[in-house]
């Protein structure tokens, strides 16, 4: 993979990029006349410590036709890197080489004027983004169709809902026909239907061999679309490689960070009693721990527990439960031994309980597992939220959550 990339032509080649910002504070952030007059040397004296090192010498390459995801926590420099590649910010030092016509979707509709109609704004924004009037005229209908705004196109955009505003912005922007596309979080807005359209458009761009850099906090989305993922943290690249691998490392890092914060533990795990969860594993058909599965594969959840011998045991009033959720909290599947009609008679002091799923009929995406030990009426001894996670991945594009085996019959 790495060798192949070196041979391919690079669309983006960033080397040893450093970016410092001057720290701006409310008072005296912008130079005011008073501060210049009263203390002409002050600004220079404090130059050193007032610098904020956002990017500390990083290399970033994207081959032509490659789609690269850029992930990292807030303030890690993702947007700064994007703006430097777009030419909006200037690098403090380092090289930035862009080969091809570039378009950046950083904030949609940033050039819109509220008093103007959608029609006027399409022309204005299109010209700002570098289209000619003829180009826009030729694409006008497609732009309006894509934005689903045919009925409102002659109303001033100040009367638009925020969703309509964003749709129009995206629609014009993707119609500029760039060779390199930088996208900063813009797909997070809009309703599900429009999001799907955006994603379809991105897929279309990929097929057309365009180079795309996507900044997103939606790791599912990044994993689904990108050929490669770069994790940016503390101004340098922390990891760079295949999406599944980098995202897993990133998730582990986030989990370890969050786990260290005491406030998070309580909310992630609660309950008390004589029996505790001591581990959770997701294993494949061979009993090997794994975190990526294909739709239709079997999977088992292995829950380890241990009992406190000094306390009276829970007796038969006991159930093991597992819940499967999406990142947004949607419950995909949940069950427990009591619901499934099992009664737990005698339990060894410690051991493992296994839930076997014969087929994983789930669509592509990231899934979280909650595990719990509780009384039959639901009082938790130990409830552990998002105790583990796994990813479902296939070569096909899929929507939704459920992906049963299916066939089509054509006439």
């Amino acid at each position, binding site marked *: 993979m790495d060798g192949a990339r070196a041979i391919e032509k690079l669309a983006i080649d960033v080397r040893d990029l450093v970016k410092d910002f001057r720290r701006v504070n409310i008072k005296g952030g912008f130079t005011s006349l008073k501060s210049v007059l009263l203390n002409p040397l002050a600004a220079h004296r404090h130059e050193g410590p007032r610098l904020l090192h956002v990017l500390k010498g990083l290399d970033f390459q994207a081959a032509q036709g490659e789609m690269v995801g850029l992930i990292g926590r807030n303030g890690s420099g993702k947007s700064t890197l994007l703006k430097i590649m777009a030419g909006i910010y200037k690098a403090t030092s380092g090289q930035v080489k862009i080969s091809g016509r570039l378009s950046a979707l950083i904030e949609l509709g940033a050039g819109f004027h509220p008093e103007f109609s959608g029609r006027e704004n399409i022309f*204005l924004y299109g010209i700002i983004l*570098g289209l000619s009037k003829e180009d826009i005229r030729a694409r006008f209908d497609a732009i309006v169709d894509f934005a689903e705004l045919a009925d409102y196109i002659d109303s001033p955009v100040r009367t638009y809902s925020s969703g309509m505003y964003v749709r129009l912005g995206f629609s014009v922007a993707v119609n500029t026909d760039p060779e390199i596309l930088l996208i900063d979080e813009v797909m997070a807005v809009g309703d599900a239907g429009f999001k799907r359209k955006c994603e379809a458009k991105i897929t279309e761009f990929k097929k057309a061999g365009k180079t795309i850099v996507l900044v997103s906090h939606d790791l599912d989305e990044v994993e689904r679309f990108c050929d490669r993922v770069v994790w940016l943290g503390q101004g340098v690249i922390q990891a760079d490689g295949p999406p599944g691998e980098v995202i897993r490392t990133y998730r582990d890092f986030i989990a370890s960070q969050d786990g260290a914060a005491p406030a998070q533990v309580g909310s992630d795990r609660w309950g008390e009693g004589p029996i505790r969860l001591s581990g959770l594993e997701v294993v494949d058909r061979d009993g090997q721990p794994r975190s990526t599965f294909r739709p239709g594969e079997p999977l088992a959840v292995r829950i380890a527990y241990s009992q406190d011998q000094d306390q009276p045991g829970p007796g038969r009033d006991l159930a093991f439960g597992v819940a499967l959720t999406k990142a947004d909290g949607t419950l995909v599947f949940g069950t427990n031994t009591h619901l499934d009609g099992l009664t737990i008679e005698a339990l060894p002091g410690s051991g493992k309980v296994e839930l076997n799923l014969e087929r994983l009929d789930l669509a592509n995406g990231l899934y979280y597992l909650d595990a719990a030990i509780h009384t039959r009426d639901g009082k938790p001894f130990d409830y552990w939220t998002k105790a583990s996670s796994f990813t479902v991945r296939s070569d096909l594009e899929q929507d939704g959550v459920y992906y049963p085996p299916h066939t089509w019959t054509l006439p």
Partner: protein
Amino acid sequence: MSSLVSHISDLVRHRSLIGHLVGKELKVRYRGSVLGFLWTFLNPLMLLGVYALVFSVYMRIQMENYAAFMFSGLLPWIWVHSSLVYGTNAITEGESLVTKVIFPLQVMPTVKVAAALVNYLLGLPILAAFIWLQGIPPSFNLLWLPFVLAAAWLFVWGLALLLSTLNVFLRDTQYIIANLLTLWFFLTPILYPLSQVPERYRWLIKLNPLTLMMGAFQNLFFRRQGPNWPELGLLALVGLAVAGVGMAVFDRYKESFAEMV
């Protein structure tokens, strides 16, 4: 020098963008008002009415066809004034374009100056008709107007580039300039002819490039004369120098605009 050439060729390359933004600028100013675009013509007329009332009724200035004299200088002053006021804010108010879109920044102050110029040009028929009504018919010397405008443009545009840059780093500029412009207005022979200024201060008034500029407009419209070429030449030279400095300063600092606005 090569950077000045690229600055100008950039503007030429983006002329359709400039044209569109100028159109937006003109359209948006009065959008939502009942009279709409008519205000473009009503505003200078009303200003003329105010000054005509004050200076030819209350504080009589001894001059034949005073209103015609005043109007021929007042209209270009309005151009200079709005160019500099709006030009100063061009970068700071266009934050979303500066930080969110890949955009040729020198277009922004240029659009403000150009939009104000279009406003002036739209006012010309009113000016001509008004002066004619006062008994001064238009002359063929008006054909020199493009030369006067070109020299004046260099000066005003260069200054707008300079001020828009300064205002990014020093927000006080916009307030300072608003006050300085009032002073400049009264120091320039617009409401009064140069001949009214006491002899010993006249050299001082002549140091003011706007005296040259307004004199050139008054020559064409009021005195029905051709340009005073040495004076116009001087104005063009000053304009070139200001425009050169303006472009150089703007280009030197434009890369940090996105971080400062």
